[in-house]
């Protein structure tokens, strides 16, 4: 039976996609651009660039304010983005999606918005592998109101120590906030398992999905996330656009962070009442052009199928892990199996500092990121100041990985 079924469905053949991405057509230092910095920001397909342009050319009006046709169309485009995102990540409803500037703004909004529900001594559990975006807003909160920050430690292999989580959780735990896919280790965290334990302890769960949305199927429901944040630009959308999706009752509880136009219900000279969520959190003119364009990015990866996108990135990552293992002395961080990783690989070369590595690779047209990747505590834990990171996207190929490895060999010869 199953054999019959597979014979009817030809296996998905991954198409050549680089032609859809204008930036990938350029050369860098007389070489074909090999873009391995998607985890910092993904390149944009032509359709997304056109959609953002079309907004300014044909629409350009402010949202939720005008009665005229352009204003209505702009509002519809903006709200369509919210609806598409809610469906994409299986959020409770479109109105439970707040449009923000980026994922960082969304996490700050959570910390500020829930501040009035937290008292000194309440505990917030984070992990040792967080991006500064999911550390610093909580550090600032702790400095303001005396909440205690605790951290799930990681193993030497770069995975969360779930055994330690049991000891960290207590009735004092109010929020558990963790990254879905680490931007340094690549580790895909067992968020659903963490969420189950956190919920049992009575805590709410926030998930930083900046590295996973658009790169694999991500469902708020399946993850057990009460709150989830991500940025559009890391999944082929425009910059200046991020999202906070949350349980509706949490959005009701949360205080707005910014006051101003559009977030109000009624304003007097000395007092004001807030609009209902999500508008309560969207003071001022938002990035309507970016919101109007993001559905084109969602279309792009959904046409490929997020399961196929995930399989492609897994395959490229597996290939990179195998090729990098062939470079003696190179230390690769994170789980050894690509099935447990997102599409990125960070490594440390004892001979060549990451900065020098990145400069030499750039001379060969290979764009990587070098540094601490906004995760200083994690690098301290790994015992290195900085790493070099190659990150992949839907347009990445085995040839890109080969160019990376050839570049590393060249750098080693250069500094020997």
């Amino acid at each position: 039976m199953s054999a019959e079924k597979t014979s009817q469905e030809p296996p998905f053949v991954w198409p050549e996609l680089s032609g859809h991405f204008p930036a990938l057509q350029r050369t860098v230092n007389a070489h074909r651009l090999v873009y391995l910095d998607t985890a910092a920001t993904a390149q944009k397909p032509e359709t997304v660039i056109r959609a953002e342009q079309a907004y300014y050319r044909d629409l350009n009006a402010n949202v939720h304010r005008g009665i005229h046709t352009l204003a209505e169309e702009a509002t519809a485009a903006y709200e369509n983005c919210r609806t598409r995102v809610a469906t994409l990540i299986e959020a409770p409803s479109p109105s439970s999606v707040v449009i923000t500037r980026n994922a960082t703004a969304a996490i700050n909004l959570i910390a500020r918005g829930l501040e009035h529900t937290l008292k000194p001594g309440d505990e917030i559990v984070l992990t040792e592998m967080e991006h500064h975006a999911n550390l610093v807003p909580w550090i600032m909160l702790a400095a303001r109101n005396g909440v205690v920050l605790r951290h799930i430690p990681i193993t030497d292999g770069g995975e969360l120590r779930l055994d330690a989580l049991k000891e960290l959780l207590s009735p004092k735990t109010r929020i558990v906030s963790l990254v879905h896919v680490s931007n340094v280790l690549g580790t895909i965290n067992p968020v659903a398992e963490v969420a189950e334990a956190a919920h049992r302890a009575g805590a709410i769960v926030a998930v930083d999905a900046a590295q996973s949305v658009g790169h694999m199927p991500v469902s708020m429901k399946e993850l057990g996330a009460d709150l989830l944040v991500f940025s559009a630009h890391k999944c082929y959308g425009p910059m200046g656009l991020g999202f906070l999706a949350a349980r509706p009752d949490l959005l009701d509880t949360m205080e707005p962070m910014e006051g101003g136009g559009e977030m109000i219900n009624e304003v007097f000279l000395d007092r004001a009442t807030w609009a209902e969520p999500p508008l309560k959190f969207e003071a001022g003119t938002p990035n309507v052009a970016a919101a109007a364009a993001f559905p084109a990015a969602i279309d792009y990866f959904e046409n490929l199928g997020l399961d196929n996108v995930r399989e492609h990135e897994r395959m490229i990552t597996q290939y990179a892990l195998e090729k990098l293992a062939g470079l003696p002395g190179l230390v690769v961080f994170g789980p050894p199996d690509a099935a447990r990783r997102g599409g990125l690989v960070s490594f440390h070369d004892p001979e060549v500092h990451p900065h020098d590595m990145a400069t030499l690779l750039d001379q060969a047209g290979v764009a990587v990121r070098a540094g601490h990747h906004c995760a200083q505590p994690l690098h301290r834990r790994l015992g290195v100041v900085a790493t070099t990171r190659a990150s992949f996207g839907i347009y990445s190929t085995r040839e890109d990985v080969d160019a990376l490895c050839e570049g590393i060999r060249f750098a080693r010869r250069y500094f020997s």
Partner: protein
Amino acid sequence: MSTSMLDQLYREVILDHHRHPRGRHELERIDIEESGLNPSCGDEVTLQFELDGDIIKDVAVIGRGCAVSTASGSMLAELVKGKTIEDARKIAEIFKRIMHGDDPPSEMDLGDLEALTGVRQFPVRVKCALLPWVTLLRAAVDASEKRAKVAGGEGEGSANGDG
């Protein structure tokens, strides 16, 4: 792979300082110590000075960094040893201006430091070259504050503790 641009950045003298950094030893007597951090990459450097009056008797440059910052720190160790703090501060100021685009002053011999001017063609790496020198500038401020404190402390106790 073309290496001409790279050779502008990593001149032989830089690679030599990188492979054999000078002044990379903890001092026994430390009069001034100052650490610098490059927050964008996490690189760090610590400068230690042993002073004889105003003269830098010995200097140590300790830290973890890329070839450019390591070489720059090594050159710093070579250049400022035996000079007064004020002369070292002047070199740092001039080097900083050069790295931000000024022409090197003709009357001044920058020694090996001249080789680092090639880094200007790689703007994101300029801060690597400057890390040890901006740390030195802060150390010079420390030194003058310390001196002011000692001078002030002779007559009036510790009234002006803030310097």
